[in-house]
């Protein structure tokens, strides 16, 4: 008889929605946010001196993680998505570190967050990052396999496109592909 261990951390309050990408028509600054609206908002709007115009979107989801032992719920509203090292440029720092980790059976991911009101990326707290790592590692079955999710210490958000992050970008064009 096998006894299935219930993981301590589980993904809860999963909410499907869209990552909306927009740009300021004057400065061309870009930012993104999560929308759970049934129809993704595409209207242009004014915010102070800036006018934000819709640039694109990707289907995505938002989630919390619940600690079954304490009942505490950790919210991850600031997380845009995860980036796998193998999807990064060969020769980049993250790719090199990812390869080193891979030799030890560790799969490296980087947590990319949304921009805050000041335009800077919101940081994931150390506690939340630890819980996120525990939650994904709890789900693994392959013996010896590990997941390591790092904060964006590489400033990858500056160089990667939204299509490289693990969100469903361009899915609506799928049927047109050969």
């Amino acid at each position, binding site marked *: 008889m096998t006894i299935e261990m219930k993981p301590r951390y589980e993904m809860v309050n999963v909410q499907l929605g869209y990552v909306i990408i927009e740009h300021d028509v004057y400065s061309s600054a870009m930012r993104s946010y999560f929308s759970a609206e049934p129809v993704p908002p595409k209207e242009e709007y004014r915010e102070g001196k800036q006018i934000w115009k819709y640039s694109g979107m990707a289907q995505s989801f938002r989630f919390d993680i619940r600690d079954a032992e304490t009942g505490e719920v950790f919210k991850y509203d600031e997380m845009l998505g995860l980036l*796998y090292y193998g999807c990064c440029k060969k020769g980049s720092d993250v790719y090199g570190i990812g390869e080193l980790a891979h030799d030890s059976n560790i799969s490296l991911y980087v947590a990319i967050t949304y921009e805050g009101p000041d335009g800077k990326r919101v940081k994931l707290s150390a506690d939340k990052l630890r819980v996120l790592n525990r939650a994904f590692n709890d789900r693994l079955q392959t013996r010896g396999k590990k*997941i390591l999710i790092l904060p964006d210490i590489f400033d990858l958000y500056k160089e990667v496109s939204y299509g490289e992050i693990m969100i469903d970008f361009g899915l609506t064009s799928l049927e047109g592909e050969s």
Partner: protein
Amino acid sequence: MKVQEIVDRLELKGATKIFDKDLSGVYISDMVSDIIANAKAGHLLVTVQIHNNVIAAANLVDIAAIVVTQGKLPSDDVIKMAEKAQISILSTTMNRWQVATKLYEAGIR
């Protein structure tokens, strides 16, 4: 059930090496976010997607193998990434529904 048994029963073609893994169930999805949220370790993922982010998501949740439907074939880069993650990519000309019914007939629930 092992991945190789499914390859044999459904007459799937291996786009990668076939890795000797046990299957615990099936998940059918074309969305990376859905795979991350809902697929389970050991699942066989049935999808039409051949983007490298599908491999990234499959690796994150410990998917055992991927069946790519409708005759789609992943690029060499995606194949290399999957092999590195020890995830078999299996190809078929069947659509997702046909694969689902064959898997049910094969006893996978």
